[in-house]
């Protein structure tokens, strides 16, 4: 018997259901049939690994991608990537993307009539260090309207994408900002039933990483799924 140790099943309510009707796009895109539970195999506990050689050091500074400085409030977003067993995840790629300070994405599909910023692309990559730390320099993204319902606005957010050590640990999420008045009305922020889990998507203002005369710091720790100690029975 070749059994592999599984990754942990999330605590109920801490991950979104596929169907969340207040988020209208989920209605025609959420699978309707139950998903088929399967045991972990070698396929799921392996996964793509990308080391520091993949990412240029300057890729983590979104304010220096162009010749001039982007408009907006400069911020530092940093944190640690850990697994559920509190183990630091070193050498894992963190990808981010975001709107500019006016709430506009540099993307052909974004029709919001806020200005593009010639000095801001909104794309960044970093690799965690030995303690699982990552750090980006960017500008605070603007809130923006969308067409989910009448007068719908997205709370300000930064998209995050992480790999971790296995196919099973892949995570795409969004980071929010403390005190944003739009969060209670944002169906994407609210798609997770468990309030504490939801609120962990909100970064915290951080004096420690705030740079005098330069930029405010926000801290956002990310937890990827952890491994069970023993192989599962099948």
């Amino acid at each position, binding site marked *: 018997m070749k059994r592999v140790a599984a990754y942990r099943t999330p605590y109920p309510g801490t991950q979104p259901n596929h169907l969340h009707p207040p988020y209208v796009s989920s*209605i025609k895109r959420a699978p309707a049939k139950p998903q088929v539970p399967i045991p972990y195999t070698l396929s799921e506990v392996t996964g793509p690994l990308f080391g520091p050689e993949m990412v240029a050091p300057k890729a983590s500074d979104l304010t220096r991608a162009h010749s001039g400085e982007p408009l907006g409030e400069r911020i530092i977003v940093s944190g640690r990537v850990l697994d559920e067993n509190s183990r630091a995840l070193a050498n894992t790629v963190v990808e981010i993307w975001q709107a500019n300070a006016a709430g506009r994405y540099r993307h052909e599909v974004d029709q919001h009539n806020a200005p593009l910023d010639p000095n801001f692309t909104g794309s960044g990559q970093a690799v965690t260090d030995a303690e699982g730390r990552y750090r980006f320099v960017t500008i605070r993204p603007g809130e923006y309207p969308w067409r989910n319902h009448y007068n719908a606005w997205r709370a300000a957010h930064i998209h995050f994408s992480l790999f971790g050590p296995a196919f099973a640990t892949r995570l795409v*999420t969004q980071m929010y900002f403390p005190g944003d008045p739009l969060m209670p009305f944002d169906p*994407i922020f609210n798609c997770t039933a468990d309030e504490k889990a939801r609120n962990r998507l909100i970064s915290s203002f951080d004096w420690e990483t705030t740079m005098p005369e330069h930029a405010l710091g926000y801290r956002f720790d990310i937890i990827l799924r952890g491994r069970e100690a023993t192989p599962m029975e099948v």
Partner: protein
Amino acid sequence: MSLQATTSQTVGPFFKIGLEWLYRDNLVGEGVSGERVIIQGRVFDGDGVPVPDAILETWQANAHGKYAHPEDTQDKPLECGFKGYGRVPVNAEGRFRLTTIKPGPVPGPDGNEQAPHLLVSVFMRGVLRRLVTRIYFPDEPRNAADFILNLVEPARRSTLIAKKTAGAPGTLEWNVVLQGPDETVFFDLGL
């Protein structure tokens, strides 16, 4: 002490900004062994309308059935031109296209080999946490005994098996159908 995994959120419609730098639609580097295949298909929503803003990621073993990952301790060769990771967005018509090789068999949970397969993660606007599925290969005798395929009700297994394309050897078709009678089988890994 146990932490809880961060909540998943949708990739949204603008993922190209952040994910394009790692797009990989051709996995086959120089000197890679194995049968070349093009896997192409479309993504459809619950109305049968093509989804223009999805992105697929794939993960697979090389032709020897070896994953480029330290947890794969099998005594099989790695090939430096093959990492096994693909990332392809769909176009405005919901179409994607991936060039790769047919992987070799890898160990399964019952002690037998699994049939050759790719793992697939599907992300898109409206999908709040990724969908996980697999692509198997047509005319593959190992499919009949594959542990994972046999966990799926027989009538739905065909959604996981790519189809040959008439007149185009080496080109396979595999679609993602989000709802309806032909809904693709998605797996629950406790995600």
